[in-house]
Each structure stands twice: as structure tokens, then as C-alpha cells.
């Protein structure tokens, strides 16, 4: 009892279009998800990293900056004290000479020369030494200039020393017309006042000041209250030039300035009334970079020691560390990006796999629920048909009985009538088979369960169909693995499955003069079950039909030849046995059905039902 279903090869292709759209949607969806994963992952990792990096950078920069500023401050203070001490010592030297020697003694040129040498014994501090009388005239002089008898009574320093007793001048040119500065000491003995005056060696002072210089861009110089250089700066300008920096920046006794020439381009230096941008333009200022300027005021004279250095050099080490941090940060971000991409890809792959599995399960579920709902319908239809069929059978029997009993009827007529009634019975039986199949499909009822040899079962089926296959020009070849374990199932159902498949395979060669069907069996040890394949060289099944081949009533056979239940019943039986059935096909090349029958599970799942059926059979 079997029904052979056949596929509809002439279908249009809406399903394929839908699948392509779904595929496109899924691909877009996964790409979007991948981008989201990477974005979230990178954001979550990079943001804290940047935050920590930024805080570390700020803290370290602040700390280093304050340490550097402190160092600059201490440096300028230290050197200011050195310069101050030097000048104080030189003033003290002159005072000592003035107060320990008489005017007459010092007016003697040899004595004055001797004294000059004694003063310069420790170092060439003084470049000349002279004695100036109360009237302001040079009365004695040792030095390289011809300054004897020069009158200083009108000079600023003469007035200052006469008023203060000791005076250290700013840089001035004087009679010698070259920048220098002097230390003058007033000596009063009785009614006589005279001044001992010495010129400090400018080079010596410059070299003393230069000791405070730091680095390649460092610069140290002295300026007076008016912002005039008292020593030559290292780069631009010379002694007695006006310093371009505004003096009102230097408030208090000492301090630190951070200059930013680029930002101050538009501002004017009040002391010289020039734009800072112009100072750069005319080369007065050279460094356009940010600079750190430490300054400290000397008490006497009112000079300011300025120590400058480019910001970039001061913070070179810090910048180096910051650069290293920055490089590390970039490497970390790159690493995070790579790891995130790999992780996200891995996750998407896992999700995709899970989705595919879920989709497969969903399809199975849909197929099962479709079969279940159609099963219910089939059962109802079978019931409604079986009752009239039963009536027809009994009617036929009544007519047969009447015919047999009626003696008056012609013998030939009787014979024809009985033949017709037999035909009625045969057609009723045919309908009955269909309804039985429908019911079997809906109930998946198996009459009995026993151990079945798959190879034997298949050979029986092939034996039944071989004649038909040969008539259609189809050769059936078998490739069976020997000694397969037996499986517990209903042998008739097993035969029905293969009858349907092989019948379909023969039908698939209808438009071809010849072809072949290859049937194989083997034991799958990994899944502990039997695998059977039925492959034909028929017309094949289009992609859009493959999804529907197991649907009930889906057929391409001519009306009256197939019910469309064959493959759905096969599917139902195999699933009921705990097995699997799948199909792959290529149009024009053929179709292959692969069936899997579990060896143990079938026995276990069916045991309870089979025991009930056995009971039923025994009672029957």
C-alpha cells in the first residue's frame, strides 16, 4: 500500500527571489551587527584607555612642569647671588684699598699699579683703576685708556658716589666710548674727599653670568630697570641694546614667565613702542617658540638676571615621555581595534551559526506543524470518505447477492454485472488505500515493530520495481555495506519509504531514453545509525521546489497518477522512526535522497507504542 508523489518541475520561482532577499537582509543585518560590535567594543576599551592616558599625561606634565619651574627658579636665584656676591666683593675690595691707603700713596702711579695688580691677583676682575679728586678730575689712572685729567664732575655716577659713598653703575660708554660699568668708592679723610674708581672687566662679568646658561637654547643676561642689556644676550642684541620683552612683565623680586611669541604677535612692547611681530620681522627676536623666562633682581645695582630657555628644550624629556606615551597609546588603540575586529567577527560567526541552526529548527518545526495541520484535515477527509466507501462496498455486495440469487438473468449479463461489481470493489479498495494512507500520514500509525535488515528490505523493494525500471530504460545498481545492524521499525513502512523514493526516481526519467538509479547503504558509526542514499540521473528538482518536496499534496504527476502524499508520507515515516531525510538536486543531472535511521533511538522511542500495538495485535 503506497502512494507515489511527484514533484512539480514547471513551477515559477518566487521562493528563490524571497530567499535571495532574505539572504541579502541577513548579510546586511550581520554586517550592521558586526559594525555595532566593533564600535561598542572599541568605544568601551578605548575610552577608558584615553581617559587614563589623558589623566596620566596631565598629571605627569603638571608635575614635571612644576619641578622644572622650581629648578629654573632655584637656578636663577643661585646665579643672582653669585653675581651679587661678585659685585659686592669687588666693591669691598675697592673700599679696603681706599680706606687702608692714603690719597698720596695711591696717586703715585707705581703704587696704584701695584694695588691694581694685587686686586687682580685672584682674577682679572678689573680692567682699570683710577683715583678721582674731589673736584671730579682724574688724578691717577692705571688702565688701557688715556683718561688722566678727565673731568667727571658732571657725570651721573660722580654725583651718585658723592651722595651714596659706594656706587656700582649701569653700563655706559663714557669717555672711552665703549660699554663698560664702574664701581666707585668715596673715601673721606679729614677734609679731603676722593674717589677710588675701577672698571669691572665686562668679559669676566659676562662669563660669570653665562655659567647660569642651560641647554642649547638657553640664554642668560643682565638688564637694568630700563630694560637695557648689561651683558650681551647670546642670540640677538648686544650690551646696552633695549630688550624687546616688556619690563612690566617682571614684577616682584623674582619670578617665572612663560612667553608665547606667537600669541603675542599683535601686542606692542611699551618700552620700545614696537609690535612683537615686527621684532621678529626685523630679526630682533629670533625664537618664535614658547620660552620659559626666570628672573631675579639684584639689590645693588638694580639689575635683573634673566635666564631663558625654549620651552621645547626644557620639556624635552617630558615631551619625549609624552611622545612615548602617545605612541604606546596608538599601538594600544590599534591592538584594541584588531582584537575587537577579530572578537566581533568570531561572535558574528557564532551568532550566524546559531541563527542557521535556529532557522533549520524553525523550518523543521514549520514543516512538522504544516504536516500536523494537514494531518488533521486528512483524518477528517478519510473519515468522511470511508463511510460512503463502506456503503458502496455493502451496496456492491447486495447487488452481487441479488444477481447470484436471480435465476432469470442472462448468464452473460450476470457475468458482466459481477465483473462491474468487482471493478466497483477494486475502485473502492483503491480509494480505501488512499484514505488509509491519509490516516497513516495523520496518525503515523505502524502496524508492528520488528528488527529489520535494511539491505533485505531494500532488495525486496528493488525486486518489486526492477521490472518497471527496466521497462523505462532505467538500471538500478546497488552498493550495500555488508552485515549492517538491524533497526527496529515496521518493515512495511520501511518498504513504503523506499517504494516512494525509487518510484519517484523512475518517474524522473520519463523524458529520457535511459538512466540509472544508484542505491547505497552504510553504517555511520559516529551517529550510530544507518545511512541509505537513493540517487538518480533524472531531470532533477529546481531549487524553488526543493523546499516543498515533503509537503503533502505537492505533486507534478498527472491527475490520477499521484496524490502528492508519497514523499510527505516517507518524510513522516522517517521522522517517526527518529531518522532524517534530506534531498539535494541539480536540474538536468539528477536527485539524491539521503536517509538516516538511528539504531538505538528508534527502539527506545517506539518501545512503549509498540508494546501497545503488540497488545492490540494479540487481542485481534
Amino acid at each position, binding site marked *: 500500500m503506497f502512494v507515489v508523489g511527484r514533484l512539480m518541475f514547471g513551477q515559477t520561482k518566487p521562493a528563490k527571489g524571497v530567499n535571495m532577499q532574505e539572504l541579502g537582509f541577513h548579510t546586511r543585518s550581520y554586517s550592521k551587527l558586526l559594525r555595532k560590535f566593533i564600535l561598542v567594543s572599541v568605544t568601551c576599551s578605548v575610552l577608558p584607555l584615553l581617559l587614563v592616558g589623558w589623566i596620566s599625561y596631565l598629571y605627569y606634565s603638571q608635575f614635571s612642569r612644576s619641578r622644572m619651574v622650581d629648578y629654573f627658579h632655584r637656578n636663577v636665584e643661585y646665579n643672582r647671588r653669585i653675581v651679587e656676591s661678585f659685585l659686592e666683593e669687588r666693591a669691598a675690595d675697592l673700599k679696603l684699598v681706599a680706606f687702608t691707603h692714603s690719597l698720596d700713596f695711591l696717586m703715585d702711579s707705581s703704587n696704584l699699579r701695584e694695588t691694581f695688580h694685587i686686586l687682580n691677583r685672584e682674577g682679572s676682575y678689573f680692567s682699570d683703576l683710577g683715583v678721582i679728586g674731589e673736584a671730579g678730575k682724574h688724578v691717577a689712572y692705571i688702565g688701557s685708556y688715556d683718561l688722566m685729567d678727565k673731568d667727571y664732575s658732571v657725570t651721573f655716577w660722580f654725583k651718585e658716589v658723592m651722595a651714596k659713598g659706594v656706587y656700582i653703575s649701569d653700563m655706559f660708554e663714557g669717555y672711552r666710548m665703549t660699554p663698560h660699568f664702574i664701581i666707585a668708592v668715596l673715601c673721606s679723610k679729614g677734609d679731603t674727599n676722593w674717589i677710588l674708581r675701577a672698571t669691572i672687566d665686562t668679559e669676566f662679568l659676562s662669563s660669570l653670568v653665562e655659567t647660569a646658561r642651560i641647554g642649547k637654547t638657553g640664554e642668560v643676561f643682565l638688564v637694568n630697570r630700563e630694560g637695557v642689556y648689561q651683558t650681551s644676550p647670546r642670540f640677538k642684541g648686544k650690551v646696552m641694546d633695549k630688550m624687546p620683552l616688556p619690563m612690566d612683565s617682571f614684577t616682584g623680586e623674582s619670578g617665572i614667565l612663560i612667553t608665547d611669541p606667537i600669541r603675542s604677535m599683535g601686542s606692542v612692547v611699551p618700552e620700545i613702542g614696537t609690535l612683537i611681530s615686527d621684532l621678529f620681522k626685523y630679526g630682533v627676536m629670533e625664537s618664535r617658540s614658547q620660552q620659559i623666562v626666570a628672573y631675579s633682581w639684584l639689590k645693588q645695582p638694580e639689575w635683573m638676571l634673566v635666564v631663558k630657555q625654549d620651552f621645547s628644550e626644557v620639556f624635552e624629556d617630558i615631551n619625549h615621555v609624552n611622545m612615548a606615551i602617545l605612541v604606546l597609546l596608538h599601538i594600544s588603540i590599534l591592538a584594541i581595534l584588531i582584537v575587537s575586529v577579530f572578537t566581533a567577527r568570531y561572535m558574528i560567526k557564532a551568532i550566524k551559526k546559531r541563527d542557521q541552526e535556529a532557522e533549520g529548527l524553525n523550518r523543521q518545526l514549520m514543516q512538522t506543524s504544516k504536516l500536523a495541520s494537514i494531518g488533521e484535515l486528512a483524518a477528517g477527509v478519510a473519515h468522511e470518505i470511508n463511510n460512503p466507501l463502506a*456503503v458502496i462496498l455493502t451496496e456492491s*455486495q447486495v447487488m452481487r447477492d441479488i444477481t447470484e440469487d436471480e435465476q432469470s438473468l442472462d448468464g452473460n449479463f450476470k457475468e458482466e454485472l459481477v465483473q462491474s461489481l468487482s471493478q466497483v470493489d477494486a475502485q473502492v479498495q483503491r480509494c*480505501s488505500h488512499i484514505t488509509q494512507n491519509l490516516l497513516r500520514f495523520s496518525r503515523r500509525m505502524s502496524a508492528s515493530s520488528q528488527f529489520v535488515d535494511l539491505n533485505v528490505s531494500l532488495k525486496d523493494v528493488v525486486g518489486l520495481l526492477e521490472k518497471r525500471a527496466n521497462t523505462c530504460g532505467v538500471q538500478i545498481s546497488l552498493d550495500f555495506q555488508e552485515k549492517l545492524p538491524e533497526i527496529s521499525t515496521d518493515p512495511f513502512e520501511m518498504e513504503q519509504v523506499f517504494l516512494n523514493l525509487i518510484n519517484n526516481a523512475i518517474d524522473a526519467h520519463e523524458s529520457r531514453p535511459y538512466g540509472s538509479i544508484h542505491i547505497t547503504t552504510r553504517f555511520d558509526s559516529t551517529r550510530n545509525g544507518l545511512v541509505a542514499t537513493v540517487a538518480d540521473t533524472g531531470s532533477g528538482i529546481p531549487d524553488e521546489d526543493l523546499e516543498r518536496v515533503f509537503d503533502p499534496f505537492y505533486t507534478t504527476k498527472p491527475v490520477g497518477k499521484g496524490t502528492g502524499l508519497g514523499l510527505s508520507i516517507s518524510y513522516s515515516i522517517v521522522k517517526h522512526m527518529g531518522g532524517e531525510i534530506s534531498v539535494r538536486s541539480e536540474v538536468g543531472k539528477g536527485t539524491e535522497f539521503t536517509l538516516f535511521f538511528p539504531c538505538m533511538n528508534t527502539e527506545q522511542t517506539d518501545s512503549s507504542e509498540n508494546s501497545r500495538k503488540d497488545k492490540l495485535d494479540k487481542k485481534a
Partner: protein
Amino acid sequence: MRKPRLLIVDDEIPFTSNLLKLLSRKGYEVSAVNDGYSALRIIEEQEFDVVILDQKMPGIDGVTTLKELKKKRPHMEVIMLTGHGSIESGIQGLQLGAFNYVMKPITFPELLEQIVHAYERKVIEEERS
């Protein structure tokens, strides 16, 4: 052995009338009713050896009717007949003491065979008791 007395319970009137004709021709004493209630009433009045009982009927169904029939006539054999049989109702019927459970459409000779077997069993059971 005398011919068994039969009762046909089926809501399909053409079917019951045909069976009546056929079985009567074979010499059986046959009665027919079209629902469960009528069946329960008629067995109060008459004795039957074998009942051919449809599963799906208006009013009370075949299984309930079988239950009641067996309460009243425990030795009466019942053949369950249905166009919509299920394993569950078949098992239920057998558990309730039905002789067999057969599917429609059944050929007349097959039905006769079932009737004969059922009656034989009834005779054996009666002899035992």
C-alpha cells in the same frame, strides 16, 4: 452451532440497511439502530451475541456505548467499526473488552469473518463460565 444474533449500531443508514439485508440473507438474526442510546435500549429488550458498533456517532460515541453495553451484557462481543479510527480509541476499545477494532471500508467477507470469530469467542467464553 446456531447463527449468532447481531446488532448493528451505526449512524450511516444506508450502511446499516445494506448490512441488514446482507446478513439476513446469510441467515443471521440482525437488528440495527442508528445511535448509542437506541443500542442501550434495545439490548434491554433483546439478546444479542455480537454487536457491530460504529465509533463516531451523534449523541454518545462508540467507546461510551461499548462501556455501557459491557456493563449490561458482559459476554456480548463487540466489533468496533470506524472510518476514523485512532490507535488510542482502538486501545481504549480493546481495554474495555471489544473483540476487535476494524477500519471502514471493510469488505463483506472480511466482516463476516470477524463476526464468526467474535461469536466463536463468545461461545468459548460462555462454555468456560
